């Protein structure tokens, strides 16, 4: 290996020093801006930049996904989930779903993660070290070795009907946001409305659930 310049945190925007997962809000920036000699070397020698970045994003996603599952501290696994969300958003970009990537980050990271973190903090069990259920690990591993295996076999050996011109060579032209908006209010109007009702009921329901308990707690405390 020729001598590499020391890797700076700016170069690896989704990893902190020492490999810790960091919030992935620099991922996008890195993707757009980050061109450094390593990348150009890789691009020159092996692949295109696009593919390298893709691999990196993919690895990030998968690894942080595993970390979600395996980390003992629940806060840690929550943040790993955060990184996973970022990675998935990046992948969305590669698929040509830019609006989708934005939505993903907004809602998941901005909404769901906040909720999760609040829930973790509200339930005091956060200080308990959540261990795996010992008896279940082995069979689960067995099953979850088998399941991916099956899926891999299927994915690899199935003949997918792929349209010509796909493969990430080009991001779809045109304004996805506009098209999606049009579809939502056009062809998918009913699902749209239903989803809104669902959201409403979820909102009301969660409030109701919390309220009762709060009321009861108050009664108990008094």
């Amino acid at each position, binding site marked *: 290996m020729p001598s590499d310049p020391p890797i700076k945190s700016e170069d690896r925007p989704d990893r902190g020093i020492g490999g810790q997962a960091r919030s992935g809000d620099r991922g996008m920036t890195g993707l757009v801006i980050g061109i450094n000699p390593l990348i150009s070397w890789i691009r020159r020698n092996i692949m295109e930049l696009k593919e390298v970045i893709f691999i990196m994003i993919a690895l990030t996603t998968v690894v942080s996904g595993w970390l979600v599952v395996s980390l003992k501290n629940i806060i840690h696994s*929550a943040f790993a989930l955060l990184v996973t969300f970022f990675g998935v958003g990046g992948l969305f970009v590669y698929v040509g*779903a830019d609006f989708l990537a934005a939505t993903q980050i907004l809602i998941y990271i901005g909404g*769901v993660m906040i909720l999760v973190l609040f829930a973790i903090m509200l339930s005091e069990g956060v200080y*308990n070290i959540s261990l795996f259920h010992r008896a279940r690990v082995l069979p689960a*591993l067995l099953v979850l070795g088998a399941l991916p295996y099956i899926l*891999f076999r299927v994915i690899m050996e199935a003949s997918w009907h792929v*349209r010509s011109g796909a493969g990430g060579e080009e991001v779809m032209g045109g304004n996805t946001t506009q098209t999606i908006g049009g579809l939502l209010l056009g062809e*998918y109007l009913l699902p749209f409305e239903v*989803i809104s009702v669902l959201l409403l009921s*979820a909102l009301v329901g969660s409030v109701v659930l919390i309220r009762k308990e709060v009321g009861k707690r108050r009664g108990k405390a008094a």
Partner: protein
Amino acid sequence: MNIISLQSYLIISALLFSFGLFAIITRKNAISVLLGFELIMNAAGLNFAAFSHFSDSVIHGQVFTIFIIALAAAESAVILALIISVYQKMDTVQIDEIDSLKG
């Protein structure tokens, strides 16, 4: 084969799905289970987006992915509310100890 191809997306989503399932089955903390659940939803959404990209109708899968995201959000809200209320009742978030429905 091409690195960036339908199969790769599918592999990624398959892995994420497996991890999420593993978490659901194995983890003791209820919120960990929720995290696993989120992983699964993400994997599904990724699946849809990938397929939409590689199919003839480019945009329609994405619409569905939006729905999935919305759904996941709503669901996580409700689940968290549940977890919190359960925590307040039984003073624990360990799923193993929430077994009043034991048969």
